């Protein structure tokens, strides 16, 4: 085992060092007494000596929006392609609504909608013709096909653009069309690979709302990969972080945000704190640098963040001293963790 493998294993240990049953509690809390519609079991995909996907396992339930996060080359797209029946696993299996991607790819395709990170658009075709082609491909006939197209046009709000050539659509509208295409056969599971890439803020918000609707109103299961972690934090209710082909952690977004490398925390006793003052923030920064138990002092937007290694009593004492020095403190709290913080603390930037 090389160095990179050992670091990954360290993370796995951290993950498994959770109190017993916590992982299971996350899953059951998400969907009590419901069968998973997407189940990945010990998935492996080797390209020669390269282990692109190495023993990945997780499950997703109806109505769940799950983020699939990882650095470039982590194995996200390979995993998604296997789920979408575009590739075969070396070992392990994926079950979509109980159907194996290896043994029943046709049944899986009927239950699954896949939106790749970049998808081409046919020239000389308008929006309705594009949807009509895919409706035919999924075997819809006559009125049923027309109804399916109409349903998708209404849901994606593309009705007004129905007769527009698809090459003239904006990036945001193209993504809507791509999402509409994946919905044409009303699949239970949606796999979206980087759907928000290249979208402007408005288009991103609109796409986020569509995905939210799919999960909450239509009970779809959505597995979504993105590099925009703030975006994922708002859309998803759970996430899995993958690096070098291995799942480092998975659970609810709140659990992930709270996650810190525990061994390191326990050894150093560090905690991140943030303080806001009405004025003299530069003086406060310099004063903090001189205080015991304080390190890594850095200004952030309207506040100062720092690491504190003391106990609760020492923390109270620090605040008392700060006020005693005449600093007008308006906020003194633990720094709120974001998905980005969790991602940075969990991953190591390993490139295979």
């Amino acid at each position: 085992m090389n160095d990179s493998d050992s670091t990954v294993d360290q993370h796995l240990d951290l993950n498994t060092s959770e109190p017993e049953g916590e992982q299971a509690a996350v899953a059951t809390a998400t969907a009590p007494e419901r069968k998973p519609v997407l189940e990945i079991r010990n998935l492996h995909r080797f390209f020669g000596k390269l282990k692109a996907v190495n023993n990945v396992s997780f499950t997703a339930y109806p109505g769940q929006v799950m983020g699939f996060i990882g650095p470039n080359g982590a194995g996200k797209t390979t995993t998604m392609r296997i789920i979408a029946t575009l590739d075969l696993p070396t070992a392990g299996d994926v079950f979509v609504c109980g159907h194996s991607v290896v043994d029943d790819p046709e049944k899986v395709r009927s239950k699954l909608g896949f939106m790749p990170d970049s998808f081409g658009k046919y020239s000389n075709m308008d929006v309705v013709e594009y949807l009509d082609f895919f409706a035919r491909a999924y075997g819809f006939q006559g009125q049923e096909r027309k109804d399916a197209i109409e349903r998708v046009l209404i849901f994606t709000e593309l009705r007004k653009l129905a007769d527009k050539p698809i090459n003239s659509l904006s990036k945001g509208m193209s993504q809507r069309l791509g999402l509409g295409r994946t919905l044409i056969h009303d699949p239970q599971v949606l796999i979206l690979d980087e759907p928000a890439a290249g979208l402007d803020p408005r288009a991103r918000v609109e796409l986020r709302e569509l995905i939210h609707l799919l999960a909450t109103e239509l009970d779809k299961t959505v597995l979504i990969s993105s590099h925009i972690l703030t975006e994922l934090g708002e859309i998803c209710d759970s996430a899995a972080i993958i690096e070098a082909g291995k799942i480092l952690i998975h659970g609810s977004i709140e659990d992930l945000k709270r996650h810190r490398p525990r061994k390191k925390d326990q050894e150093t006793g560090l905690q991140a704190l943030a303080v806001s003052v009405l004025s003299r923030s530069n003086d406060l920064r310099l004063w903090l640098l001189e205080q015991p138990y304080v390190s890594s002092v850095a200004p952030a937007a309207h506040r100062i963040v720092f690491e504190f290694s003391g106990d609760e009593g020492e923390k109270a004492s620090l605040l008392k001293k700060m006020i005693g020095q005449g600093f007008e403190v308006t906020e003194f709290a633990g720094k709120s963790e974001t998905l980005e913080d969790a991602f940075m603390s969990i991953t190591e930037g390993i490139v295979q």
Partner: protein
Amino acid sequence: MNRAASGDQAGTSWLDRLEEMLYSDRLNPVFSRELRRMVKSRTFAITFQLVLLLCWLSYLALVLNTSTGSWYMEQGLTFCSYLFVILALSSCLVIPVVLFALAAEERQESTLEMVVTAGITPEQILSGLLSIGMLQALLYASAILPFIAISYVMQGVDLLALLLTFGLTLFGSLASSVMGMTLGACVRGPTTRAILGGLNVLGSFILFILTASCAQFMLYQFDDLPSIMAGGVCVLAFLAPILAILLGLAINHLRMTDPMIKPYRVLLDENGDVKKFIPRYQNSGYQSALTEEEVIREITNR
């Protein structure tokens, strides 16, 4: 289309009925897609107009040259031979280039992934493309048909010879279409596209010359029918397996899950231990980068 999709008064006007008929539910989805694109395609419109223009120019030349009755029969045969060259030019040279572009586009524009996940097989893709190629050939032939009728009326051309030459030109178009599709399906990037595109043009040109030469031979030497029939059977026997091999190659290139890159299938039990190891394609001669023992060790020692 939009009228039909919206469902309001569907099927009431003759246009709707025509559309329903043209885009029937029974059609291959790829064929109906390409039919819609073909109708709007500039390449098709320009080629069709060029075919008509060339036919008119040939007719004009014929009228200018035909002044006396003694030349009547000979000019009819010459005119007919020109028409088949024009048909071979559009069917054996233009169509394979179009089909090459369509097949290459599926790979390069990443539309193939969406098509495959929608349940369309490589066989359906190829049959859809081939059908659209043949439809184009028939439409070009329909543009030439009135002029062929004129040449027949002028006498000097046998009806059976006309039919056989027509069949030969369509077969030439089919062969060049299969070649264009196969080369298009093999495209992986800009470099392979440039190389294979060049090969396709060269191959199409050779097939055009062959088809046009055979058409001339058939029209001028039709008296020797047994020899023509024997030659036709020999050509068919030679080309049919080649076309079958090309189609097989194209199908393999359009498959997303290439079985040759996964020569083993490992079944795991509930604990993730190897339950069964099934080597695949043992007789294919394919060598995996990892041996059976290495794969099992990699999986169990994770």
